């Protein structure tokens, strides 16, 4: 029946017809392309990323990432909130590493206010300590989820078990597990309780054993190596031209880490290595993150061995909120608390851009202030967005199954891309 409907003028097509399916093969490769939609609700896209794949058989010819399914309007919210009020919003950008997002934002505000050098040593030290714990936690989630994408079910259970220890540490420190808002403009919300240090000690002890377990369980696994090696090769030139950063860039042979290049928050006082691999494939990105967890653990070890004494907040009543017990006994402090909570502080006129090394790459905040309590413009430089933009370039010519491995190795977070 169907064969009757095929026009006789298209003799070059070879028609294969069954009962109700008609497949036409042509010599023109453009006719063989099938468009396949992936996402936004797909377990392997790490959130709500949508990919439109053009496939020729099993081979991908074109990938178009569609973003914006988690657009939250955070940059616009920043223009309507005082500088203090925006800190909790930054938590919800990269929700795998909220404290690093806090840090990136508050360093920008501190630079705008010109108080970067006045931050107490203890606050800076603790910021490094918690940033590195956060980085380990973020990489653990990446390890578990990307292993699931490759078909390995068990690593996520180990990874989540380790992550729970870090979450316990955060909960003990500031009461929140994930969206902590612990770093504040001018220091920290409060000093760490004494009970936290033994918890971190225990975590480091357990984690050292765990890292070796991951080495045996995951890194050396022949299936994993076959799935990742030579997949999604990103050359040094492409990585630089797409402005990639973080582990993606370091896996392509560029030794660039903001912690070393432009140290912030006292990173210059710590000894650590930057893992760099030359291959640029998914396996190199995998190895960079595995090594980074080890390096972060050494930074945490150095940090807890010598925490300097002193205050954790800058001594500027016009910027930081006063302690709660002081507001309850002192009228002036109460008025100050009221003004800072309702209106915020006045920032000087200026433009600043400050970056940190988040777990995904170079995270930056660009602030334009025309004076007053709110920024005129707040722009976020998102590492995940730039790392995702390289996806079409590196996944062309690979198989459908490989794109899952490539997305996993890029370690994107849609909350930060869409903001």
């Amino acid at each position, binding site marked *: 029946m169907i064969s009757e409907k095929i026009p006789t003028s298209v003799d070059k097509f070879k028609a294969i017809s069954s009962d109700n399916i008609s497949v036409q093969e042509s010599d023109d490769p453009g006719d063989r392309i099938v468009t396949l939609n992936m996402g936004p*609700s797909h377990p392997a896209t790490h959130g709500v990323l949508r990919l439109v794949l053009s496939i020729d058989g099993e081979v991908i010819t074109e990938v178009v990432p569609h973003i914006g399914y*988690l*657009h939250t309007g*955070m940059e*616009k919210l920043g223009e309507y909130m005082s500088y203090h009020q925006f800190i909790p919003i930054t938590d*919800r950008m990269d*929700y795998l590493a909220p404290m690093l997002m806090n840090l990136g934002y508050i360093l920008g505000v501190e630079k705008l206010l010109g108080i970067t050098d006045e931050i107490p040593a203890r606050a800076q030290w603790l910021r490094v300590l918690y940033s590195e714990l956060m980085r380990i936690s973020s990489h653990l989630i990446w390890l578990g989820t990307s292993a699931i994408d490759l078909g390995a079910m068990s690593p996520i259970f180990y990874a989540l078990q380790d992550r729970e220890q870090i979450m316990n540490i955060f909960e003990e420190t500031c009461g929140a597990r*994930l969206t902590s808002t612990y770093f504040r403009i001018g220091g920290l919300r409060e000093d760490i309780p004494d009970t936290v240090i033994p918890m971190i000690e225990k975590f480091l002890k357990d984690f050292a054993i765990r890292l070796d377990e991951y080495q045996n369980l995951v890194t050396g696994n022949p299936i994993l190596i076959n799935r990742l090696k030579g997949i999604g090769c990103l050359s040094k030139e492409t990585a630089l031209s797409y402005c990639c950063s973080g582990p993606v860039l370091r896996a392509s042979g560029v030794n660039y880490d903001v912690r070393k290049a432009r140290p912030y928050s006292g990173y210059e006082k710590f000894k650590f290595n930057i893992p760099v691999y030359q291959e640029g494939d998914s396996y190199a990105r995998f190895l960079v993150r595995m090594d980074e967890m080890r390096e972060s653990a050494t930074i945490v070890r150095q940090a807890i061995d010598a925490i300097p004494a002193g205050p954790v907040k800058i001594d500027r009543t016009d910027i930081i909120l006063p302690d709660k017990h002081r507001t309850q006994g002192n009228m002036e402090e109460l008025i100050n608390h009221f003004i800072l909570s309702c209106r915020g502080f006045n920032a000087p006129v200026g433009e600043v851009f400050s970056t940190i090394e988040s777990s995904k790459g170079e995270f930056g905040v660009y602030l334009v202030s025309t004076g007053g309590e709110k920024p005129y413009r707040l722009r976020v430089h998102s590492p995940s967005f730039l790392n995702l933009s390289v996806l079409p370039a590196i996944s062309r010519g690979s198989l459908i199954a490989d794109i899952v491995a490539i997305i996993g190795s890029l370690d994107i977070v849609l909350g930060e891309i869409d903001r």
Partner: protein
Amino acid sequence: MGLEHQLGDNILTTSLEWAVNWARSNSVWPMTFGLACCAIEMMPIVSPRYDLARFGSEVYRASPRQADLLIVAGRVSRKMAPFVKQVYEQMMSPKWVISMGACASCGGVFRNYAILQGVDKIIPVDVYVPGCPPNPYALMQGIFEIQKKIKGEKFTDHPYE
């Protein structure tokens, strides 16, 4: 199930109802539908510490056709809203919905042009779990509430669609 229309409430249908509800409440399969921060707190409930498998809900399904429970974990943007609705409609009846976290329940801290101010504007929600994001224990409590709800249901509550 069809029987209740012919037989009415009698010992056969009510006992069958009890047995079916018991089976349904102890095999609630959630759908893998992580949207934002809450998804990160949704993942640990299957981890060794929380271990939802004790209550029969550990099997996360990637396809809505195989899932009974939609956990809307995170903020729903206006661009994502049609897809949330579509996923809900693709699920087989009987189905239940948990709105996890402040953003899914009411928009949370994001009161602006981009975020849907509550997922209940587009799909019916059975249980709201407060928190930003809720502790995994809180989400487990939400699943227990769903189980409690299932145990009190009648066949006629879920007509064939």
